């Protein structure tokens, strides 16, 4: 019986816009085992960022259940939810926008500790901040620096230290390295991996970078326009992708290797349909290379086609 730290059931988030109802996250369900990483991939508009924030109730979900350590977060009131926040944290994508420009590094990292009254002694707080900075590879001498004095990689480390300061069990990593240079990306990914094993953290890793998610996840779910189209353990997904979108996505990633023959790639044609007022048919049908008539008639349900591997495609009816 797996120890699931998080179980999401039928999560929905709809936004009311002038043109109609925007289905940002549409009936998503998954489980996350303690200590593991779930990768959530997709392109812009697929809802992956919204899922991350909805799970933490930074955005209020429209409906669904979020069972964290056995407790449904949706049933908690504001005060109870605030108390929960020490257990679940988030690392943001933009190292420039996610830090208050008027607070020093030390102040930012210690804020969560002070707000949640985790440590009362001032000296002990300073020690803890030093400890955290050390853990994330930030030199102590930056404690009095302001964010604009540091580069993107260091700022991201501050964000990580802040998230760790409350001793969370679970962290949503929302595109944590997309805004960084290639060589810095590798440093941060390694750091996150190391922290996971050291502190027994569970992650949801949201990204559009297929190679990063390959490196950094145990299970992966592929999102398209708010729906989960495929979910599988990472190696199974990369070696045997089943959904046409997943296949196209994997094929589209340029490979940094010399090839004698230019490999054959799946190039999608057609346009992405609007996420507002979605019709009742497969959302990928307008671009799908394996499209057939039934795809226009109804949305395919998510089915488990082999152990741990789920696909939502009429090909598997």
């Amino acid at each position, binding site marked *: 019986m797996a120890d699931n730290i998080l179980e999401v059931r039928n999560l929905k988030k709809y936004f009311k816009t002038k043109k109609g109802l925007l289905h940002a996250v549409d009936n998503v369900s998954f489980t996350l085992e303690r200590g593991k990483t779930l990768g959530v991939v997709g392109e812009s508009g697929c809802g992956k960022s919204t899922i991350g*924030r909805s799970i*933490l109730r*930074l955005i209020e979900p429209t409906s669904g259940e979020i069972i964290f350590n056995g407790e449904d977060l949706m049933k908690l009131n504001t005060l109870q939810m*605030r*108390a929960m*926040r*020490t257990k679940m*944290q*988030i690392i*943001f994508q*933009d190292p420039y*926008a*996610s*830090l*208050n*420009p*008027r*607070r*020093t590094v030390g102040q930012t990292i210690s*804020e*969560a500790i002070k*707000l*949640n009254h985790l440590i009362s002694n001032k000296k002990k707080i300073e020690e803890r901040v030093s400890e955290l900075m050390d853990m994330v590879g930030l*030199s*102590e*001498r*930056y*404690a*009095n*620096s*302001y964010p604009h*004095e540091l580069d993107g990689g260091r700022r991201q480390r501050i*964000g990580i230290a*802040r998230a760790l*300061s*409350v001793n969370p069990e679970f962290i949503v990593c929302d595109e944590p390295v997309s805004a960084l240079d290639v060589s810095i990306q590798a440093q941060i990914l390694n750091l996150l991996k190391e922290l996971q094993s050291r502190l027994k953290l569970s992650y949801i890793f949201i990204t559009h970078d297929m190679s990063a998610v390959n490196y950094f996840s145990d299970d992966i779910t592929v999102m398209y326009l708010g729906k989960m189209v495929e979910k599988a353990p990472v190696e199974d997904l990369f070696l045997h992708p089943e959904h046409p979108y997943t296949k196209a996505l994997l094929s589209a990633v340029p490979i940094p290797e010399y090839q004698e023959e230019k490999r054959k790639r799946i190039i999608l044609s057609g346009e992405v349909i609007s996420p507002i007022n979605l019709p009742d048919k497969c959302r990928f049908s307008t671009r799908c290379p394996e499209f057939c008539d039934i795809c226009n008639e109804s949305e395919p349900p998510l089915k488990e086609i082999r152990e741990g591997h789920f696909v939502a495609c009429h090909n598997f009816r």
Partner: protein
Amino acid sequence: MKLKKVKRRSTFSEIWRNYRKSFSGMLGLVIIVGILATIFVGNFIYDYDTDVIGQNVAERKQAPSAEHFFGTDEFGRDILTRIIWGGRYSLAIGLAAVLMSSIIGVIFGSFAGYYGGVVETIIMRFADIFQAIPAIMLGICFVTAFGQSIFMLTIAVSIGAIPAVTRVTRASVMTVKDMEYVEAARAIGANNIVIIFRHVLMNAISPVIVQATLRIGGAIVGIAALSFIGLGITAPTPEWGAMLSSARQYLRGYDYMALYPGLAIMVTVLGFNLIGDGVRDSMDPKLKK
């Protein structure tokens, strides 16, 4: 080797560093510091009863001379002395009024910008109503209703500016509240009050400060205006606007009686406007590097 901690350069020293680069800012600072020093010294040199309001019929309406640099008024009082003494009212009330309107305006504007919805609508519609009435009218109504004590005058001068401050604050807060670090604060468990004051306001305050320094000049003119029509500081206490008012009937032939109080207002307002320019330049992030 333990590297020394990077010395903490507070935001103030950064701002001061930038401020010094602004010519207008430094010029304005010199002017205002000069004026303040003069008023301060004047407080000890002059005696209120004899020098400031003491009438001397023999020396009435004398043109500027070595003895009376700015001449004397219709009661024989030295105009220079009265200008220096009267400056305290303009400056004190002007600055206090701006401070008051800023605090009130910022509080309303932050709530309007942060909460939106009904709260915003109510606050902003009130702001609209007040803004539709000319500031001087508001001041007059207030003074007529509540009297002319210094405290009431300060409020009267500040009322007209509150809607504008509310508006600027709201706009600034609206841009800042969607920044990711505000979301981050929520994620670590901060409640709304902490978020508004520590995260949003700290970053939204720059345009408000700039606008405030530029409003000081207007506040000084405001108190002068109220005194000009007799609803401000009462005679015989000198106040620049009141002095202008009583000089009206002597413009033909004794223009110096109006000239010097007018110049005092002008130079003071200019000084504060230059400081305002300097503050704006020093806080403009684009000018950094």
